């Protein structure tokens, strides 16, 4: 851990800490919403550790709370989490380090935040340090937030009053903004967003996001 600390610049350490704090806040809203939807505390607690992917957990809870089949909810969550496959391909080889324990834990801490911070660093040692720092930070902050949120949520019913539902989309948006500065990617992302919005009224959750991938076809034409 101390070598991770020394490898990263002060600014990167601060940004990672802020990202983890934001994850903690979203965890609060997640735990509170789960309890408000009628789930016992162990559900957000177990999911936050085992799944460790916010969007899919919100989706899973939302579909089951609406009376959906849990297996269908899991399928929808998996659709959303399919993006971790391209993430793993986009990361440099041997990012997590040697040994199967590091490989397994290193895969589990792969998330939107740890991938973005790793990709933003210049060399492999820094990429590795940023990835582990952010990944382990999220592994701590997400469940901690979820459990505290569940405890608070059983007291406060209306989490919407605090605007917590705006946090998740804002976090993801903030993370993809650097990519959106590139015109071609921005066009593809916009078309994908429009496809998802246009199909949301007619399709089960999770599918609109996958349909959005048709926007790739646009991106392949020269801009």
């Amino acid at each position, binding site marked *: 851990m101390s070598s991770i600390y020394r490898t990263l610049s002060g600014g990167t350490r601060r940004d990672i800490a802020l990202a983890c704090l934001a994850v903690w806040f979203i965890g609060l809203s997640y735990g509170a919403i789960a309890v408000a939807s009628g789930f016992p505390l162990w559900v957000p607690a177990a999911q936050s550790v085992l799944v460790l992917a916010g969007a899919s957990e919100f989706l899973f809870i939302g579909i089951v709370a609406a009376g959906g089949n849990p297996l269908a909810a899991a399928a929808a969550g998996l659709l959303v989490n*399919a*993006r971790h496959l391209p993430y*793993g391909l986009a990361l440099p080889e041997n990012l997590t380090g040697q040994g199967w324990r590091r490989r397994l834990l290193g895969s589990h801490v792969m998330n939107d935040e740890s991938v973005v911070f790793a990709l933003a660093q210049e060399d492999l040692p820094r990429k590795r340090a940023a990835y582990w720092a952010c990944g382990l930070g999220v592994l701590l902050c997400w469940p901690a937030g979820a459990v505290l949120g569940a405890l608070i949520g059983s007291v406060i019913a209306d989490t919407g009053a605090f*605007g917590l539902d705006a*946090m998740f989309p*804002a976090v993801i948006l903030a993370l993809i903004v650097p990519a959106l500065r590139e015109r071609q990617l921005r066009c593809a992302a916009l078309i994908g967003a429009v496809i998802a919005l246009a199909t949301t009224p007619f399709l089960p959750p999770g599918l609109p*996001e996958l349909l959005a991938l048709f926007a790739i076809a646009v991106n392949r034409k020269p801009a």
Partner: protein
Amino acid sequence: MKDPTLFAAGLITLSAGTFAFRLAGPVLRQRISFPPWAERLLETAAVILLAALVATTGLTEGHHLAGLARPAGVCVGGVLAWRKAPFLVVVLAAAATTAVLRLLGIP
């Protein structure tokens, strides 16, 4: 939660499947090398997925459009992020905007 066994099966499926997705990338990467156009395609796919996720979670509720408060909060966050505001400022401003609008009676 009507059927605890089915619920547990769903939870385990989501956990195991997500881990499989996470593990597959690095494992595949060691065995196959992707041409640059394929890597570019994968990167684009990831950004499109995330953008679609922002649109659906930020603007819709169930099968309908959400009220005004959440989309407004997300927009404020987006503008701040574009202007390179710190991460936490972006996220807290989004939540605060939504909370204040709801306080004013806007859903």
